[in-house]
């Protein structure tokens, strides 16, 4: 696991121009008065996206065959991608949050600081869910096919919601009513539980994919 993390962080280091570009755009967004939470979303998203890029790098020029002869177990590869994603995405998120705080300080706008942190945490969780969706797709289908599959999943997801709303008119409204009757703590606990469940399912699927993968 240590070796895999080391490899991915070294891959990130050789891509420093990319990250300097991300940092430059972040500064530009702040200077043009963009909303801080939007900028946090931007840095976090690109940091998470780099995790997916490392999967493509691992496969680039058939490098995957050799990689899997190195001393680690197949399931460790899948687990490492999640860990790297959390660490690296966390770094991007942290930079975004700190930069946002500096921006708020410069603007002298600290009134909604609690909301700022809540929004930042929500952005991290939502994007982590996106990562949890992307990792198994990338591991299974690779970069090219993965993009198409993701598109299909989005369509299926929105199609499913649309179908549900057509089949059970008012169903979504009833669901929202039930949620609104719960306390804020219960809603947060429910969301955290759902988030962890999705994440664990994603990890389980990725481990299975890697254990069966042929090179």
């Amino acid at each position, binding site marked *: 696991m*240590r*070796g895999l*993390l*080391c*490899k991915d962080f*070294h*891959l990130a*280091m*050789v*891509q420093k121009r990319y990250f300097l570009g991300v940092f430059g755009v972040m500064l530009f967004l702040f200077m043009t008065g963009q909303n801080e939470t939007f900028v946090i979303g931007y840095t976090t998203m690109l940091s998470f996206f780099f995790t997916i890029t490392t999967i493509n*790098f*691992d496969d*680039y*020029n*058939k*490098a*995957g*065959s*050799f*990689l*899997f*002869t*190195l*001393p*680690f*177990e197949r399931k*460790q590869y899948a687990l490492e991608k999640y860990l790297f994603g959390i660490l690296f995405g966390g770094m991007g998120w942290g930079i975004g949050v700190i930069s946002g705080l500096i921006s708020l300080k410069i603007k002298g706008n600290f009134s909604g600081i609690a909301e700022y942190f809540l929004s930042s945490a929500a952005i991290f969780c939502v994007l982590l869910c996106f990562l949890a969706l992307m990792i198994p797709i990338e591991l299974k289908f690779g970069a090219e096919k993965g993009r198409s599959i993701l598109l299909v999943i989005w369509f299926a997801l929105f199609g499913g919601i649309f179908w549900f709303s057509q089949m059970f008119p008012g169903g979504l409204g009833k669901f929202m009513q039930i949620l609104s009757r719960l306390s804020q703590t219960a809603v947060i606990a429910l969301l955290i539980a759902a988030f962890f469940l999705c994440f664990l399912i994603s990890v389980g699927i990725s481990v299975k994919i890697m254990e069966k993968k*042929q*090179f």
Partner: protein
Amino acid sequence: MMLTLENVRKNYGDYSLQCSLRVEPGRITGLIGENGAGKSTIFKAILNLISIDGGEIRIMGEKPGKLTARQKEAIGVALQDSGFCEYLRVKDVAAVLKAFYRSFHEKEFADLCQRMGLPFDKKISGFSTGMKAKLKLVAAISHDAKLLILDEPTAGLDVMAREEILELLQQHMDQNNDCSILISSHISTDLEKICDDLYMIHNGSIILHEETDVILSNYGILKVEEQDYPSLEKQYLVRRKKENYGFSVLTDKRQFFLKNYPGIVAEKGNIDEVLTMMAKGERV
């Protein structure tokens, strides 16, 4: 035994691999065959990169899929068409190897890279084929591996680069007597120089396993006219092939024919000829 393959089977559509093979401690075992014979499939099966349809593989007593990360540290690998991610530089590779292998010799790795002319700060994508091959081998031998699995480490290289790689391997074996190597190549002279024993593979099957010295000293090609063929001692004939002049015949007892058939043309066999006869010749 460092490595054993017992009746390993793998089917890809029309293609079928079926082989048994052994690599003993302290020995260099070669696997030779034409392109597409099944060498890389065997390597992939050994390294658990593909599943097998039957038989059993054991590396240092363990099934490849059951090897722990710690056990895998004792294996060094160089594959023909795959290596480190080419976005990395040699210094990144050194750091990654250090993180993977507890017994990685950082200084030895750096010295060997310098000796082989591998720049530390350049991305692997900018390396020539020879440089990439050298890096793979240097990485494979720099962490006290007990078993080296080398798939075509000299393929696509010029004579000088091939010599350097073979010298490096020989030097490694001299310094590590308990190390074993399984090496494949379609260049017979490379294997002739370093291998203790050779497996010849054709169409997914092992067609000959013999000590390299025995092949080079005992095997030979007899060239006989058609009317002389029936008088030859058949028990020492392995394969025959129809020629314009009669038959070319592969024997594993060249000395016997030189002694007992004065005037017979009995050329010393080389590995390529033996392989060709074994693959294309008719069983006697």
